[in-house]
């Protein structure tokens, strides 16, 4: 079978191939963009949290419009929580994973001048309470902690960073002991890295994409006087429910008289918070999945329908080919290759279209640029779909007996 014969068939009956091409191009453009959006939503959900989520209870947020809590009150509550049965560690904290009521944001500049924006978690003994895995350096020493809000700067503030941050800020060499600076405050003594943890998911979940999921820092600060109080409590996994009850009744005993009754603190396990935090993300994913599925179904049906008609129209041509010695396999191959040709052209147009759409969306909405790698993914997907869709009409074509060549002439 010569390529020229095939091209001339496509050219002479150009309406059907053109419509298939157009469908493939549109579907490819939509799928590339939707898959990209899906990946943007999925990344924070797939990122490892780094914390012992199953054992972690979060209390957030004890607040009052009329008063704040003194350092002594905070410490009493923290120690009270630590003494509860089933509790292994407890920290008063500001900024906690999956907690969106308070965000702590920091900017760091590495020795090589790289600047990144990260979320921070602050509290006494958070490495132990959150169950983080240290891969280099050490935890903060008790003497290193300063009271949050104290500005008696002198020595750099000790910090524990994540591996992802270390790779970004200090790409060459050992991160422990290095100095990081605040690009906005030239007079600030900066921060000294004392330890590196493997993972710690940031609480600004919308930013947890493109390798920035672990942009989280722990600083050697503890909560002193506080306007809104949050606690992280790590419990014995075998006593989860009992410990949750203990923590609840303790918080009520301790704070019911002082906290606002109309916005009571939420006391629940990390897993539950995670579920709630990703609720809208999940809804969006379902929507995108629905869109992708509809696009795929519509495209497959469209290609099947059009090719089916084409086979019917070319029955006599197929008969002649068969009569001249073409085998069934040759006929099937003819249609598969024809489809491949059309789809490749469609994908080429579709990639341009996908890129254009993304540029348009980027211009109007806060969307990142579509990486090049999505274009071939969409293309390969379309090629597979095209071949799949054309299979049944091609088989039908292969069943055309050679005898039809002689009929009705």
């Amino acid at each position, binding site marked *: 079978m010569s390529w020229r014969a095939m091209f001339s068939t496509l050219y002479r009956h150009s*309406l*059907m191939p053109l419509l*298939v091409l*157009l*469908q493939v191009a549109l579907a490819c453009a939509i799928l590339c963009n939707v898959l990209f959006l899906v990946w943007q939503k999925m990344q924070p959900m797939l990122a490892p949290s780094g914390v012992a989520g199953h054992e972690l209870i979060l209390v957030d947020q004890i607040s009052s419009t009329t008063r704040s809590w003194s350092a002594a009150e905070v410490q009493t509550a923290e120690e009270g929580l630590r003494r509860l049965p089933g509790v292994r560690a407890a920290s008063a904290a500001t900024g906690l994973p999956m907690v969106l009521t308070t965000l702590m944001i920091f900017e760091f500049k590495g020795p090589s001048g790289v600047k990144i924006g990260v979320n921070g978690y602050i509290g006494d003994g958070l490495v132990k309470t959150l169950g983080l895995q240290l891969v280099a350096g050490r935890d903060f020493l008790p003497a290193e902690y300063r009271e949050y809000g104290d500005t008696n700067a002198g020595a750099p503030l000790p910090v524990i960073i994540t591996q992802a941050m270390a790779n970004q800020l200090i790409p060459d060499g050992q991160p422990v002991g290095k100095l990081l600076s605040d690009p906005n405050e030239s007079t600030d003594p900066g921060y000294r890295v004392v330890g590196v943890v493997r993972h710690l998911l940031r609480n600004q979940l919308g930013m947890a994409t493109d390798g920035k999921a672990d942009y989280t820092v722990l600083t050697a600060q503890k909560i002193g006087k506080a306007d809104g109080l949050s606690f992280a409590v790590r419990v014995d996994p075998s006593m989860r429910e009992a410990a949750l009850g203990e923590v609840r009744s303790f918080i009520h005993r301790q704070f019911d008289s002082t906290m606002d009754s109309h916005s009571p603190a939420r006391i629940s396990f990390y897993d539950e918070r995670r579920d709630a935090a990703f609720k809208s993300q999940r809804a*969006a994913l379902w929507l995108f999945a629905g869109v992708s599925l509809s696009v795929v179904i519509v495209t497959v049906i469209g290609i099947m329908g059009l090719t089916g008609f084409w086979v*019917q129209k070319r029955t006599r041509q197929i008969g002649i080919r068969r009569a001249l010695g073409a085998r069934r396999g040759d006929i099937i191959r003819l249609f598969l290759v024809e489809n491949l040709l059309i789809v490749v052209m469609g994908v080429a147009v579709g990639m341009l279209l996908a890129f254009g759409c993304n540029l348009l969306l980027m211009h109007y909405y806060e969307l990142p640029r579509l990486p090049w790698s999505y274009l071939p993914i969409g293309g390969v997907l379309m090629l597979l779909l095209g071949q799949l869709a054309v299979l049944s009409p091609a088989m039908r074509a292969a069943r055309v007996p050679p005898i039809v060549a002689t009929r009705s002439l």
Partner: protein
Amino acid sequence: MFRYNFKLALHGLRRFPKSTTLAVLTVALGLAASMTTLALLHMLSADPLPGRSDHLYLAWVDTVQAKPFNTEVFKMAGITISSYDRIRMPDAEALLGAHRAMRQTALADMSADVEDGNGAHRQKDQNLLATTSDFVPMFGVALRYGRSWSATEDADRRPVAVIDENLAQQLFGTTHAVDRVVRINNKPFQVIGVSAAYAPQPHFYELASWSFSGSEHESVFVPYGAALDAGMSAYGPDGCDDSVTQKPGAAPDPQHCAWLSYWVQLDTPAQVASYREYLTHYVEQQKSLAGFGKKIAKVELLGVSQWLEKQNVIPDNVRLNVWMAGSFLLLCMVNVAGLLAAKFMRRSGEIGIRRALGATRGSIFTQHVIEASVVCVIGGVLALPLTMLGLKILRLQDDGFTDLAKLDPLMFTGLFVLALAVGVLVGLLPAWRASAVEPGLQVKSA
């Protein structure tokens, strides 16, 4: 002729029921997706107060005695700081006292427990609008009974209240609640008016509290002076003078923090221009501001639609979904055009005979466009329940605004106009192809 074409179209559709069904279903799917997203966008971009909002303007003067906020850090962290362009109480009082607009009011949302006089019925955490006497006439709150308060009562900080029918019913078991006493935040207020429920969408006059909501609305209106006297306070302010320290979550200092939204009614462009001039002049008089790096008078006078645009009240993903659904509809259209082209070409013989018997190309073309339109209108009918289903799914997501997703008569008509337009567009190519059939060739081979 149309009837004949229509009959031919129906006949044609019955010929290959499988491909007809497929085409109808595809169109229905595309239309339903588009209509679902369009209906939500339409509800969210509707005029909150038709007939009134064209004359309402939010006025803002930057007189807070503090250094301008450094937003660079937040930008890097991907956080947009919302500022709702509110002003401090002393400024509000000065502007109110000057009476330079047709009507003017200052307002802020608060929340309080409300009970009847003897404390028998209690409604917790009611949304309450602390405002001034002009609010009710200016924003078109419909009074059922009684009256709204006067400027004198504002000045006297008189504890009077206008409550809505639902709250009156809950507290007193009747909507005739005028002259009764309600206890708001444990302080007695006299009910002087009962209003119909008031919930414009979006909640444009105080976006700091919420923008779209099917459940939240203010059920109590009181003079803001009286509200402060009763110990209530606004939520987080936009900014405070450096002379006070504002703790996050704490009640804002009414004198030194920007917590009041200031709205004016201006009926002509000339009034708008002169009011803007007045505001600029007002800020320029505040000599002390220069010390805070605010050398140039910053004022704003924004119409309702400008204001809503500035605050970006319609979430980006609502628009994004419209784009997505629109491109899906386009795909469906190409698909149906293909299905119809195949269908029409199958009857080339029949078309040849019609042409041979004297039908013009034009009439063949019309016949097939009508057939395509019939397919799409049937698809539109089918899309209606699908759209309802789509909207119902949207309402199930509690994004705050999604419970407004409904199909109004305009969108209902829009669905069928869209279906028809899609039908004609989709029909053009296949119909042209069908009308290009050469009669001689077809008759010979048939």
